[in-house]
């Protein structure tokens, strides 16, 4: 029941936030903050929960929905889901915080959309019925579209439409795949089912398998995103308001990775194994190519967006290496990147909010003026480039370590991404904070008096994220332990399925 509660808190909180605007425009943000904090607290009870008949799952609920087609309302959470749920709620708080002063128009509707997106994400991370999964997949898409299209920046309609079309088209491919899979189940067992566990039993060795798998793969790698489906992301990020970017980079991208780990590979172990070299090559290309494109950007948000794609390449690499280290690495990268990318977007958004430009050629020498901002940006850039002792390193190192056992060349190429990561990360620091101060040089095109340092409230958010990254970097074992059970089960299942396949 906890899971239903988790989703309904967000749905109801969203409605309340919308309605509360009628009474006072300052009310929605408070309602939203309370909602996400309650959400996080309820999630924490999941950690020791035994709300499921199956001991492998911490909590689950399975009710009939459309029994005629075998569609059930099946939610369940295990260690992997809980990790990602916690990330979602945590970044939910951060997102509300970053919206606090930035969003001033149609406040109620904004928080409604924000919370409903989160509700969709929570649903995606817990749904074990593929029809339900698809439903939540769409639920998180539409409010996000509104967030970009209504509160975005100068080119918001283009960006929102692009985001919508990419996600929608790839989502439709997934829907087709889900239907075909359910049909396979009908053919083999005589009744329809969309349930995850039923579908796991489907023998997917037919000639169509690869195509069906690709439907899932494309949907998830579009969300992830990876080459060559990434081009919606820079536009969406550069146009989205800061809280939108935080949710997009921190949480929405992770649904793609989660889908790969939970659905794409386990449902089609054989096709995935055949496809793994291609996927790993794509990952390596993605890492290198997007790192290079990131370096060329002058728009700071676009730059960070491209680095996101580059980092998610490590996740893709780890998932398709499909061994314990690599998968743990992928999960750790998801968590750590969730924090570091969210923080970097928040920093870029805060900067844009202050000086009304994202153009880095307008910046320079800000260190003396805004030392706290510089420290924050430096910390998260360093985290992003994979400095040991911070979470991202654990993720990327484990992913590469595991991937090396699967594909040496893809790993070596991906490791070169570490060099490029240092190139673009330090370039950002150089262009924004180092060098001569623009206003003194007299080439600044922003109002100097608006360039204020982070205040205490903002520092609390950044401080929380820093602590999170240090924790993940110095003592990642609790995180690793939480997801270990899930990942080992998945590995074991696919090993058995592969063993059962003749030849």
């Amino acid at each position: 029941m906890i899971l239903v509660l988790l989703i309904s808190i967000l749905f109801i909180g969203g409605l309340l936030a919308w309605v509360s605007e009628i009474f006072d425009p300052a009310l929605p943000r408070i309602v939203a903050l309370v909602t996400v904090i309650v959400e996080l607290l309820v999630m924490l009870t999941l950690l020791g929960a035994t709300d499921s008949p199956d001991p492998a799952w911490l909590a689950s609920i399975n009710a009939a929905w459309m029994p005629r087609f075998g569609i059930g309302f099946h939610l369940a959470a295990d260690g992997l889901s809980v990790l990602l749920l916690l990330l979602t709620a945590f970044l939910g708080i951060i997102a509300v915080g970053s919206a606090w002063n930035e969003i001033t128009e149609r406040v109620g509707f904004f928080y409604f959309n924000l919370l409903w997106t989160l509700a969709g994400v929570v649903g995606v991370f817990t749904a074990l019925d593929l029809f339900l999964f698809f439903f939540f997949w769409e639920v998180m898409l539409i409010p996000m579209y509104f967030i970009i299209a209504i509160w975005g920046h100068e080119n918001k309609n283009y960006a929102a439409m692009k985001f919508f079309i990419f996600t929608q088209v790839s989502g439709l491919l997934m829907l087709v795949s889900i239907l075909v899979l359910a049909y396979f189940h009908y053919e083999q067992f005589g009744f329809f089912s969309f349930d995850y566990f039923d579908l796991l039993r489907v023998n997917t060795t037919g000639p169509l398998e690869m195509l069906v798998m690709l439907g899932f793969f494309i949907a998830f790698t579009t969300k992830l995103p990876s080459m060559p489906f990434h081009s919606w992301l820079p536009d969406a990020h550069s146009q989205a308001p800061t809280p939108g970017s935080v949710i997009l980079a921190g949480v929405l991208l992770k649904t793609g990775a989660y889908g790969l780990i939970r659905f794409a590979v386990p449902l089609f172990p054989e096709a995935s194994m055949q496809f793994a070299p291609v996927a790993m090559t794509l990952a390596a290309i993605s890492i290198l190519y997007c790192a290079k494109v990131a370096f060329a950007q002058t728009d700071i948000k676009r730059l960070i967006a491209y680095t996101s794609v580059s980092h998610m390449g490590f996740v893709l690499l780890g998932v398709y290496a499909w061994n314990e280290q690599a998968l743990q690495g992928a999960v750790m990268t998801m968590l750590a990147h969730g924090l570091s990318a969210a923080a970097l977007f928040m920093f870029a958004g805060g900067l844009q909010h202050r000086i009304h430009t994202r153009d880095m050629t307008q910046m320079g020498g800000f260190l003396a003026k805004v030392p706290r901002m510089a420290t924050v940006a430096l910390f998260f850039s360093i985290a992003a480039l994979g400095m040991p002792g911070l979470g991202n390193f654990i993720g990327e190192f484990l992913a590469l370590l595991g991937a090396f056992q699967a594909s040496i060349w893809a790993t070596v190429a991906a490791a070169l991404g570490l060099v490029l990561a240092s190139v673009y990360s330090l370039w950002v620091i150089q262009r924004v904070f180092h060098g001569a101060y623009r206003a003194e040089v007299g080439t600044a095109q922003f109002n100097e008096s608006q360039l204020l340092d982070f205040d205490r409230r903002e520092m609390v958010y950044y401080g929380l994220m820093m602590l999170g990254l240090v924790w993940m970097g110095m003592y990642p074992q609790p995180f690793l332990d939480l997801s270990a059970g899930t990942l080992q089960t998945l590995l074991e299942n696919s090993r058995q399925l592969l063993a059962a396949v003749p030849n």
Partner: protein
Amino acid sequence: MLELIWLLPTFPLLGFLSLVLTAGKLPQRVVAIIGAGSIGLVFLVAALIASQFLDSGAEQFVFTAWSWMSVGEFTPGFTFYLDGLSLVMMLIITGVGFLIHLYSTGFMLDDPSYSRFFAYMNLFVASMLMLVLADNLVLLYLGWEGVGLCSYLLIGFWYQKPANGYAARKAFVVTRVGDTSMAIGLFLLFSQLGTLNIQDMLHAADAQWAIGSNYAVLASLLLLGGAVGKSAQLPLQTWLPDAMAGPTPISALIHAATMVTAGVYLIARNQVLFELAPDIQLLVAWIGLATLLMAGFTAMTQHDIKRILAYSTISQIGYMFLGLGVGAWSAAIFHLMTHAFFKALLFLGAGTVILSLHHEHDIFKMGGKRKQLPVAFYSFVIGSLALAAFPFSSGYFSKDEILLAALALEGPGIWLWAGGVLGAFFTGLYSFRLVFVVFFGESRGHHDAQEVAGFSMATPLFILMFFSIFGGWITIPVESVFSHGEAHVEHHVSALLHGIMIVVPLLGIGVSYLFYVSKTFSVEKLMASSLAQGLHKFWFSGWGMDRLYDTLFVKPFLWLARINRNDLVDWLYALIVELTRAAHGLVVRSQTGSLHWYALSVAGGLLLLVFLGVLL
């Protein structure tokens, strides 16, 4: 007592945290106490631990602070490993580190970012201690990257100048190339041997791999990649001269005494692995030789006081690599230690010169400064004597051992020895060129500069002078570490060869005297020929390596970045959009709005259907 080893990285880390969190609000005196005091405390702890360890007679001591992570077989911990080698490194880092911190409290006094400076310095010491005390390669990698980060932060410390930022980034990126090679090495070692704990890994390698087997060669080559990056050896040496953009104490601590020798430590630490790959070990020697000669030539042509010292550092680390390559493991570490003393002395002396002469770097704008800058003068004379391996100075003992070991090597040994001796000649030449030009002759500028050397700056110099002279008599307890592969033969060499090794550096000093003091030889005359000028230009630019890399890597990368700023892949989707638009345009044409046209097409379609129906 030995358990206190966890305090070693903790103290500087606490210093770092307290300085960062107070964000420059503390008064300078407090910052100095925290910054230098934490390192002083660490040195005391290190000394205590060292004496305890040596008394106990144990060969190693392992202490696990906590388990870092455990994923399948991959279980690195925050585990510290103390043996003779890490003991020596630990003492060098904390000892020399403390002296340099003390010096910095005076040197940086006028800088507005006083506390930021000490915060970075403390973080550096913490990372460096982590590096040398790590018992597994992952923790070592943590320290390895950590010192790289601090090096970046401190080179770019004066961030207002874009050139400093460039130098800092260059240092970080170039060393990261090496680091990545090392990381791949770690992946290889783990995938083959199933552990990254250094001792277990070495045992496993010894047991599983034959001498010269492919994996051993590949793994040691990849680790060597990391080592040449960090230690500024060919072909990744280009970052170090530019790294001199940082404050001078940084150059002393990071880019002379400690961090740049991390590569030497790495190779020494993985001695077994390199002995399994004799070809690579020999490659280490050749890299060392090539680097020491190249850097020696280049140092002769520079006129920035710090760049000369930077090239001499590269050259001296070349000697250490030479030592590692010919199997003189303890001699290499010994040279690492003596080099830390005299090079720190030289850099700190240079710092005094630079500060006293209002940030003047060009040695040809100094001249005759021995009266004005007495402390710096003595520092330079003593440091340079040790650097040039003047008999019975500290550098003499260590360099001697390396060269003798090279001579003892069969096959290419004699060539390595000859190259090393030639390098020693140039060492004498360029180090005393610096001394003579700066401190002798007539003053060429800054005629009335006063030496800035308070208590905090002078004390470290005197202590380092002492160790630069007498450091050669210290015995380092690394025998047990390297006993595995080191043949303990007394080097019996003829008196002639020994004489050559003593005389050659003196010869270098003499030639330098004839050029720069007595003016018996004239530099101008030498430079008259176009060949000499060309050579000078070539050497001055560091053998054109910067330009080479610029053309090979930087320019193509920038070009690629420039032409593909808007992401080719996005064009693909733009193309789809365009195609859709074009198709739309085509279909739109059929909607003419003319009733006749519609009626005709209905009739035509009907006819076609009937026709098809009849036909089929």
